[in-house]
């Protein structure tokens, strides 16, 4: 029988184990600001 698990619980179990200190790469765009942001 299917039981509906709480999303948080499911997410917890399904989360891909990340190596300690893993830093997600910066989004590819938009790029860095060279002078100032208007």
């Amino acid at each position, binding site marked *: 029988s299917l039981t509906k698990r709480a999303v948080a619980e499911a997410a917890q179990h399904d989360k891909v184990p990340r190596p300690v200190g893993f830093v997600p790469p910066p989004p590819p*765009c938009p790029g860095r600001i060279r002078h100032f942001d208007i």
Partner: protein
Amino acid sequence: VPAPPAPLGCDDPESEAAAEIALSYINGHSHHGYKFALNRIEDIRMVPQGPNKDIVFLELDLLETKCPILSPTPLANCTVRTFAEHAVEGDCDVKLQKVDGTFSVLASKCHSHADSSEDILKVCPDCPVLTSLNNTEVLETVSAALNDYNSKTTGSYLRLLEIGRAKIQYHPGHIVATEFAVGATNCSAEEAKANVGVCQLLPEDQSNFGFCTAVMVKSPSQDLQVDCQMYGHQVPAPDIPLLSWPGVTYIHPGQDTS
């Protein structure tokens, strides 16, 4: 099946190279105002067109520099206007092609606009903000400044090409500050006094453009300061048609070019 190449990042060296080609094209093909510098690569998309050929779509955020578009100063030496000096931002969409690793611009469309005065005054309540270039006081100041310069110069009579920027401060003191582009004519200042109608801008192969700043103090006491720098004859780059000046033009706060 080989994995598709990872999408280009906006700060990748290849994106920076494409942006540099795009910026050089935009400044090289602009006829008015000031040179723009790159502030941010907003987005980049590369669409493969076959072996060693891609189409690249770039979105660029630019900021106006203090160098007039006709100035021979290299862009790298042009100072970007600060936020408090009332910055002007440019948004450009550029289409390039990349063939065998070489970028070339196919089309560009830009829109420039001054930052909002409210934003400036929030941060700097006493900073004078840009005013309309058709403002009566601005036109009077530019006219008085150019007449004053021509009455004192030993060089050729200068004609107004366009007004670039203007600010009016009302407190403390009533001050009008303007920047405008000028072109040398085929008259000396003396000849112009006799018959200014015959004084025409020099032909393309002798053209000599320059730039003036003028500050008129109206109160507490009257004063007018004018400074003009002439660039001397610049040999136009072969692929860029020499600027054709349709007479006096005024840049509006928002300007589209493509």
